[in-house]
């Protein structure tokens, strides 16, 4: 019997999905990785419930809505190594640009002032915003920070490959904020 595969998840909070696009940019290396890892949860698959006993979760995006908040608590509870993937997860990046204005002004700007057809602040379906868009580590413990907007496919591949070898990836020469 072969050794059990490493259980990997990815989650998309308040980000542009660019980090997930960069993940897909690994191209044929994804097939290579598929021999070693099981992707058990990701927005790219149709899985509703975040599973238990996940070895590594890559988190894209800031914690901006109450839904983001509930989800990241669930993820942390069930993940051994939690990775903040990209600038939004690490610094709240672009989603945080609404912070100085406050929730009310932000929603009004998005749903009333710039809308011609039926302008109204949503009261259902759209998850309510928290007072501030925050980095993931401001809410739960984060084990590794991978900077970049987005981190390159090479960087993400390096991170996964190093983690699979049981090492902590040294990213000092590979990426930076805004890369």
């Amino acid at each position, binding site marked *: 019997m072969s050794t059990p595969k490493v259980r990997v998840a990815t989650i998309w909070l308040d980000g542009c999905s660019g980090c997930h696009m960069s993940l897909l940019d690994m191209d044929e290396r994804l097939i290579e990785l598929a021999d070693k890892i099981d992707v058990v949860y990701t927005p790219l698959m149709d899985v509703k419930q975040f599973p238990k006993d996940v070895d590594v979760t890559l988190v894209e995006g800031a914690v901006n809505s109450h839904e983001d908040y509930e989800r990241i608590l669930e993820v942390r509870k069930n993940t051994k190594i939690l990775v*903040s993937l990209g*600038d939004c997860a*690490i*610094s*709240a*990046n*672009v989603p*945080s*640009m609404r*912070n*100085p*204005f406050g929730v009310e002004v932000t929603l009004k700007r998005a749903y009333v002032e710039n809308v011609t057809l039926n302008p109204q602040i949503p009261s259902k379906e759209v998850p309510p915003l928290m007072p*501030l868009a*925050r*980095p993931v*580590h*401001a809410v739960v413990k*984060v084990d590794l*920070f991978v*900077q970049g*907007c987005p981190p390159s496919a090479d960087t993400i591949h390096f991170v996964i490959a190093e983690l699979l070898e049981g090492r902590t990836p040294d*990213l*000092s020469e590979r990426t*930076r*904020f*805004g890369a």
Partner: protein
Amino acid sequence: MSPTVRVKTLTIDGQAVGAREDQTIMQVARENNIFVPALCAIEGLTPVGACRLCIVEVKGVNKLLPACATRIEEGMEVTTNSERVANYRRTILEMLFSEGNHICSVCVSNGHCELQTLAKKLGMTHVRVPYRSTMRRVDASHERFIADPNRCILCTRCVRVCDEIEGAHTWDVMGRGINSRIITDLSQPWGDSDSCTSCGKCVNVCPTGALFEKGKAVSEMSKRQEFLPYLTLMREGKK
């Protein structure tokens, strides 16, 4: 070298070096290819010790000293890269990032920013303190330049270059502590300034994207700072 200038000897990171007695630790370190980070110090302007990133350990002195504003002394033993210094520097960087609104990914200076470069070089992986997310208004009233205080780290390079080199003193600092900010003239819009000569020196010495040229998009604003040492020498009549 004139015969009245004395030479002093000291060690930096265990390396024995000699230098003129009127030099600072930073000058001597850099002459000897020893890296000392800085955001406010720039060759050609008076040091102010504002950013504290150049702090070093000196044997026998309990507090950390700013290398840019500390003269060398005979027999000094300087350490530029201890774990203690590295920790303080990372903390300072984190506080700079949390104090303003530094969104590298959408900044004109992305890829050319001294703050961003140092964050990478000094291993700042994330900011441990809460972001302040304060509202700071952008001044786009000048014909050619924009001041975005969200990206300002109060290094005062703009203030000094305008005063010491251009001689206009358009820029200054207003307020105290956390409320300090950079202003033009008597806190009037930059575009209305009577003293500004539109020379652009402030824009080019600014280490971040706080001062930039109009029409620049993300990552397009690279600064040119080579002019400064030459202008300083000319002012002093040495060339």
